[in-house]
């Protein structure tokens, strides 16, 4: 079994493309998304003032607010910019003043409040209650803090299913499985060797991604590293089992690719890798929560962001383990050895 696992690893690291997709790609993805959604503090809101009598006076008042940037625009340009989202709100001077904006956009709602407050104060409205802002940045509240555990989960899923699925089907296609059957090798050893070799790659994957997030974006692991390691090991076993199940019958690479996408795509979308699954309708949530990737992502986030202890993660970890165990047992039963 040790030799089998060793061969698996050798075959893998001698395939430069596979190495990139498993280790390089998630890091590139984290880097790109981390840059795109980096927190630079709330930027200035772009506001348009439609050309008309008194337009420049309104613009000057609005510009005096540190949170607004006002531009005077002619009617046609103003409408175009509002439609394409380059300004959050249009002020049409006159009596009454008109605010034109899309009420479903968060940004526009904010602009409406700020613009109104600034204009009303300029005309002499007094604040009746004294207030003070206490700005706090909660640790782990940035997008990248949310993203890194999600990418880790997605990566464990992807490498488990791809790594196991493709090599099983390839061995079957090359009649290598049949050749192994002609030796006294135990069948369970063959399947377990995949899980064992996954364990070794797992260390590299987790260290690379977590290390990367920590170095570049300062994403810290608030929980214990031992808990994180335990969760990733469980997740990796579980997905390797799922990978075996996916590959247990397929005869061709094309066939298994389709099955893999069928398994992975819904989870990528539903399981809260890139955005929170709380956005899905309430009726879907129990189903989404039963997916192994959702459970794994929840557990990873709980440890990395909230520093949760392993004892509080019973439910998600039980879901992860159940998926792995059930698929491994089914895979062993229905596996096509030739």
């Amino acid at each position, binding site marked *: 079994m040790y030799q089998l696992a060793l061969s698996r690893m050798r075959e893998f690291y001698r395939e430069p493309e596979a190495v990139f997709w498993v280790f390089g790609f998630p890091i590139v993805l984290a880097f790109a998304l981390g840059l795109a959604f980096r927190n630079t503090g709330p930027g200035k809101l772009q506001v348009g003032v439609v050309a008309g009598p008194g337009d420049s006076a309104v613009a000057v008042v609005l510009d005096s607010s540190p949170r607004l940037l006002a531009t005077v625009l002619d009617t046609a340009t103003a409408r175009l910019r509002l439609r394409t989202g380059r300004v959050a709100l249009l002020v049409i001077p006159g009596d009454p003043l008109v605010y034109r904006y899309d009420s479903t956009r968060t940004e526009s709602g904010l602009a409406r409040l700020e613009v109104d407050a600034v204009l009303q104060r300029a005309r002499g409205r007094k604040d009746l209650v004294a207030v003070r802002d206490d700005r706090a940045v909660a640790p782990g509240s940035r997008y990248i803090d949310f993203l890194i555990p999600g990418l880790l989960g997605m990566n464990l899923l992807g490498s488990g299913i791809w790594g196991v699925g493709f090599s099983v089907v390839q061995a079957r296609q090359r*009649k290598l499985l049949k050749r192994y059957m*002609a030796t006294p*090798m135990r069948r369970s050893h063959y399947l377990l060797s995949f899980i064992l070799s996954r364990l070794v790659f797992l260390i590299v994957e987790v260290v690379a991604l977590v290390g990367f997030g920590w170095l570049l974006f300062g994403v810290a692991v608030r929980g214990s590293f031992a808990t994180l390691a335990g969760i990733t090991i469980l997740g990796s076993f579980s997905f390797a089992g799922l990978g075996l199940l996916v590959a247990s019958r397929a005869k061709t690479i094309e066939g298994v690719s389709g099955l893999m996408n069928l398994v992975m795509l819904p989870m990528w979308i539903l399981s809260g890798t890139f955005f929170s699954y709380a956005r899905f309708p309430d009726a879907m949530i129990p189903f989404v929560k039963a997916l192994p990737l959702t459970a794994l992502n929840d557990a990873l986030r709980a440890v990395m962001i909230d520093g949760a202890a392993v004892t509080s993660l019973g439910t998600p970890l039980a879901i992860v383990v159940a998926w792995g165990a059930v698929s491994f047992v089914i895979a062993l039963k229905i596996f096509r050895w*030739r």
Partner: protein
Amino acid sequence: MVAVAGLDLAVGTGECFGLLGPNGAGKTTTIEILEGLTAPDSGDVEILGTPWREGAAGRALRERLGIQLQETQLADKLTVSEVLALFRSFYRQSHTVEEVLALVELEEKRKARVVTLSGGQKQRLAVACALVSKPELLFLDEPTTGLDPQSRRQLWEIIRRFRAAGGTVLLTTHYMEEAERLCDRVAIMDHGKVIALGTPRELIASLGAEHVIEFALSDGIPDDLMDPIRGVGGVTAVRPGSGGLSLTVTELHRTLPALLALLQQRRLELSSLTTHHATLDDVFVALTGRQLRDT
């Protein structure tokens, strides 16, 4: 679909037994049933005195076998010695990697990746994987198909040495020449049935003659020529051959002059004439009326 029907074979210890036949004759199905890889619909198989069983008994039996399959492609990215180390790890007792490299003369290639090997070297590696377990019984499924003559001779030499050390071999081939050289006994198969069984010498002798004359005439064979040819001394059988006639004869030195005299007397012009010792190919043609290679 039934690929093989009504097969009854017994192979003795220390023997080299050949299953011979064209593609699609059922050789591979037969050997895979014997190897315990395909379950027969009916009938009994005993290997080294034991029937195939699932589990520990089956594994114990596999310890004693060496198997080379027809189409196995070993992992491209591994080196020769890594592949052998892997297969070695499956067996309780086995040759060391170096020993088995020496058996198949792949010592210089030990560090080469499988993908860089030539066809002959890959095949020797496949045989090495079968030999690594120090088997008592070696199964080879078309070990030399598609190889150049030199590689074939190298493989024959490996098989010969294995037998010299007391091993039993069961091989399939569609090269009659290979069967004649290597095998003590052969079974000729066609359409899933054994159509002849015996030593190569016995099978050739069953033709009733040792030589074959094949000839063609420039204007084709006239119908009224058949009877006079059957009457030529020493001719035991007349069959249509490739573009002409094929005669099996007992004594070449008597029949050939008589045949030439007959043709001259009839003023028929020869376009080709060849003679050879009767081979298993001729046995196959005699039994099926087909050339082995056409099928």
